């Protein structure tokens, strides 16, 4: 499969590979079909973290070029970072020269923003804690001025800050875009609500997906901070009580919800840090399904999907994605793994009929322009 190297013209203009573990079936749809694939009573949980510009280019005291990619915020003005040597995002990270070896006390400068090393991680000398010489509004202003969003070597063009945000982004906790939520437009989210599917959110500090350093990548994802609001705890309980499914928009949401349960023994509101690793051996207890990127076997993300579907079904999903030319990676198509998804739209039909109707038989949805206008004015008068 090939990576999507440009941003789609419409964020929701991507395809959706539907994997139904209950039916052991796979089919192709559009992400705009999501409201028909879920059932009234289901709950979609998104990660509302905005994406920080998390890549800083600068140099050390000797003038050696260095790039720092933010990995986690561990104090008011202290961030854990991964260091890269000279070069830029157009090179694959595995082809980049190593960064200069830094020790505690060494200084770095990124344009107007200075920092010094306060710790070197045991896992790799390339992972250090940097204390920036600014705090509060001045630090955030400097980060937004000096840093760029983390880029990917397969991209045709550099991604601007707006291109790495979801439509519901709030606090800038994420260092890479929580990309499973990227295709969700308000058109789709509001259609889900009309269908009776609820929304809820967590905030999860999505860290780096890969660094190109094998030893380091084996340690990813590192501990990530999350926050679960009371409204989400209540919404999850209500969904399960009424027999609905909880669907995580992205593996960061799975990590937050399942990580909270591991950490606290129950789901309650609060902030925590999770080191949970998902994989074939993991049985999710909060989350029933996941919306995620399209991944190929061998990628670390692919292994996570083993928590949601058995290997033969995932093999069938990959074969279907390859046959139909699905695009992978952050800007690519997405995959929905939800038990019963392929029976939701037209329960009377057989699976294959459902699938073909999802693909081709889609009547235009929504109201006429006149209805929209009259409803709009009613909303103003009656609100």
């Amino acid at each position: 499969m090939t990576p999507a190297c440009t941003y789609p013209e419409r964020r929701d203009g991507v395809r959706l590979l539907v994997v139904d573990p209950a039916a052991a079936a796979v089919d192709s749809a559009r992400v705009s079909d999501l409201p028909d694939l879920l059932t009234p009573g289901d709950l979609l949980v998104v990660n509302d973290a905005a994406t920080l510009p998390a890549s800083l280019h600068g140099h050390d005291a000797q003038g050696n070029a260095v790039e720092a990619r933010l990995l986690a915020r561990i104090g008011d003005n202290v961030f854990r970072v991964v260091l890269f040597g000279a070069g830029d995002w157009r090179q694959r990270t595995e082809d980049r020269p190593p960064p200069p070896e830094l020790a505690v006390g060494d200084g770095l400068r990124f344009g107007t923003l200075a920092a010094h090393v306060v710790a070197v991680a045991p896992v790799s000398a390339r992972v250090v804690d940097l204390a920036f010489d600014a705090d509060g509004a001045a630090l955030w202003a400097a980060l937004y001025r000096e840093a760029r969003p983390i880029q990917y070597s397969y991209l045709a063009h550099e991604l601007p800050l707006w291109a790495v945000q979801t439509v519901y982004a709030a606090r800038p906790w994420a260092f890479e875009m929580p990309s499973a939520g990227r295709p969700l437009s308000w058109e789709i989210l509001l259609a889900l609500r009309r269908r009776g599917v609820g929304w809820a959110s967590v905030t999860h500090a999505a860290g780096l997906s890969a660094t190109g350093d094998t030893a380091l990548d084996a340690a990813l994802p590192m501990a990530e901070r999350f926050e679960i609001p009371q409204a989400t705890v209540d919404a999850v309980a209500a969904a399960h009580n009424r027999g609905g499914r909880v669907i995580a928009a992205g593996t960061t949401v799975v990590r937050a919800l399942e990580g909270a349960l591991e950490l606290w023994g129950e789901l309650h509101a609060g902030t925590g840090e999770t080191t949970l690793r998902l994989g074939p051996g993991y049985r999710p207890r909060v989350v029933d399904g996941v919306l995620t990127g399209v991944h190929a076997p061998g990628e670390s993300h692919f292994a996570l999907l083993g928590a949601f579907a058995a290997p033969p079904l995932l093999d069938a999903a990959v074969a279907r994605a390859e046959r139909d030319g699905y695009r992978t990676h952050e800007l690519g198509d997405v995959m929905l793994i939800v038990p019963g998804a392929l029976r939701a739209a037209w329960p009377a039909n057989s699976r294959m009929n459902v699938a073909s109707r999802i693909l081709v038989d889609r009547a235009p949805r929504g109201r006429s322009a006149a209805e929209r206008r009259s409803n709009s004015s009613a909303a103003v008068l009656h609100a």
Partner: protein
Amino acid sequence: MMTMQNTAALVTGGSAGLGRALGEALAARGARVVLVARHAPGLDEAVRAIRSRGGEAHAIVADVADKHATYAIAGQAAALVGPLDVLINNASTLGPVPLRLLLDTDCEDVERALAVNVVGPFRLTKAVAGSMVLRGSGVIVNITSDAAGEPYERWGAYGASKAALEQLGRIWAAELGQTGVRLFTVDPGEMDTRMHADAIPDADRAALADPARVAERIVALIGDPRSAPNGARVIVRADEDVAA
């Protein structure tokens, strides 16, 4: 006095006039306030004034007309005070003063008025309102002028931009109707501000409203969901409001 504890608010054009007064009125009720303006000195002074009274305020130096500043403003604000509950699009430009007849107005000045007074508020609202919709609550206020409706000579660029802002506000409100997010447009009338002095230098200042009193009325509107219907254009005066 109504409390706005646990409220995160962003005010553009926050270094002077009505914007500064809105920041002070919000902070006095306990809101965590972020002020945005183009120039650091006036902005820092506004923040210092709020902090000296025990309020929480932060400054972001940015131009709302700059496309690349939108998500930087939204991100910095949410980092400083949390997800925003209140957005006040107050920043606005008259264009060059003395104001000119349309036949004498440069095209670039019309473009700039639209960029600051219409497109900037659109972008910032787009960047902020999604998280409000997800949480099911939030208030957006666009500041307008009677020049949006009255064909005052020499107010062409400004008046047209405010008319566009008002229509945008009505459509925002229609689309956000059932989401729990409210938007209204406020006409604050003639106030004793630098902008007013720039536009009408020989005005009788004694006849102009104190922006602090107008700000109090706007903040009261924000805090009371029954005060104005979603999408309404509210004429706010120092002593009374008229919702239309």
